[in-house]
């Protein structure tokens, strides 16, 4: 190269470039921003009023103060975390930009890290107003959960990333025809993750399955905290261990699907 004004690129710089790309995109479209806030706000208002009604009519819910609203917010962290990652990925498919990225010095792991960072940013934009609405309308201070909230949040976000990375790999390999899985897979986990009811409600054999999912431990831990006033650190540790396995597996699967996409020439098309 002649007077090439290029220096050795660092991973951090490439990740930063990708985050900047998604930030520009988010800021260029007010409907995208509005959508991030709209659904969580709608959720919290609907479920908040339901909880208000139940506390007036049921002794249990009067005691369980906030467990329903807490579950709604934690579920949204799980769902929106996954969506935040997967939608940033889909933006590349919709824009037919993957070829540009895959041929640049950007490494797949750096791409995934930038998607994780974007998932946190999009989550913050959607969930922080949601928690404020819960405080103002239903007198539920989500942040009063305190330190356990960090354990709940980390475990949920790790699960959301694992699923987000996995579904992004599926779309990468199979094209936009597989896009619907981005929106639906997490809902498939909802009944088993026991978001709104204790694991004990499930039939015995289904309970074994439920305990294989990290979010089950989080929702069970949240109920223990809000209803019984006990922080179950053991549940958080189990969840973290399963999450570590899931996250490592999701990375490996994504790389395998990327390789398969390159073998099948899918990166040149990206359509259905």
């Amino acid at each position: 190269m002649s007077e090439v004004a290029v220096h050795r690129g660092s991973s951090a710089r490439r990740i930063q470039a990708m985050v900047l790309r998604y930030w520009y995109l988010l800021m260029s479209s007010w409907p995208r921003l509005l959508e991030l806030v709209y659904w969580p706000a709608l959720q919290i208002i609907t479920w908040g009023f339901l909880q208000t009604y139940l506390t007036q009519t049921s002794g249990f819910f009067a005691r369980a103060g906030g467990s329903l609203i807490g579950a709604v917010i934690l579920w949204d962290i799980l769902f929106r975390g996954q969506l935040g990652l997967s939608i940033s990925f889909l933006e590349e498919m919709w824009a037919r930009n993957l070829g540009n990225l895959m041929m640049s010095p950007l490494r797949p792991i750096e791409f995934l890290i930038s998607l994780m960072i974007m998932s946190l940013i999009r989550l913050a934009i959607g969930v922080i107003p949601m928690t404020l609405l819960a405080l103002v309308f239903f007198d539920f201070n989500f942040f009063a959960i305190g330190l356990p909230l960090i354990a709940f949040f980390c475990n949920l976000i790790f699960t959301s990333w694992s699923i987000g990375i996995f579904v992004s790999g599926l779309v990468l390999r199979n094209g936009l025809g597989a896009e619907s899985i981005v929106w639906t897979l997490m809902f498939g986990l909802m009944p088993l993750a026991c978001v709104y009811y204790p694991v004990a409600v499930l039939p015995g054999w289904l309970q074994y399955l439920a305990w294989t999912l990290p979010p089950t431990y989080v929702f069970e831990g949240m109920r223990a905290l809000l209803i019984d006033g006990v922080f179950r650190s053991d549940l958080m540790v189990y969840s973290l261990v399963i999450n570590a396995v899931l996250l490592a597996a999701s990375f490996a699967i994504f790389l395998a699907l990327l390789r398969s996409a390159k073998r099948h020439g899918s990166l040149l098309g990206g359509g259905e």
Partner: protein
Amino acid sequence: MVNSDITPAPSPAADRAAIDVAHLTKVYKTTRAVDDVSFRIKRGSVTGLLGGNGAGKTTTIAMIMGLVLPTSGCIRVLGHAMPEEGPKVLGRMNFESPYVDMPMRLTVRQNLTIFGRLYAVANVGERIAQLAADLDLNDFLDRANGKLSAGQKTRVALAKALINQPELLLLDEPTASLDPDTADWVRQHLLDYRSTHDATILLASHNMLEVERLCDRVIIMKRGRVEDDDSPDQIMARYNRATLEEVFLDVARGRAPVAETS
């Protein structure tokens, strides 16, 4: 390298070449998109890949870039095996293709900023200003990419391809859908870039005049195989034709070179 049984150790000549492709084959299910293709492209040259639709040009370029994995054969780019050593070489090359777009909602400046950072360009702002002047982008530098005309988009894609001042430039139909004036302007710019940077250019094109004007060497592909490989003048002489377009038609319709038939 893929399939180690047919990938010999690279020779010094292969390492000196900008691109060295040996026995490259790509099979999609039952279709042989590229069939035992070998060529070596020397640094600083402009080479055209010619061929009809489905000849294997795009697949060959995509394999060189690492976007498609070969079924067998080996590729070395700037002395490095692809795709294994891609991270060592991807920052020194770039490409433009109609199969990929620049993000539509971002402005031209935002897009170039991002790619500048991805390619570790030291002073991205300065480089964008330089490209904007060279490629006449200033009037729409802060306009969303989706709101540009086809000609403007092509210039922006070219700016992205040149952002890191690549040693190796891969171009797939660089002037497709451009009016003759803009296409001519792009070709002149490519020639200028090659002479000022001693860059190597490999381009796939259907435009025979473009290939005649730009290329030192032409590789003609048909049904995934190399049909002919020489300078444009030599190929035209071999087919006893005045233009590459006539040669192209001869190849497409299965007419052998005059030298072979006489």
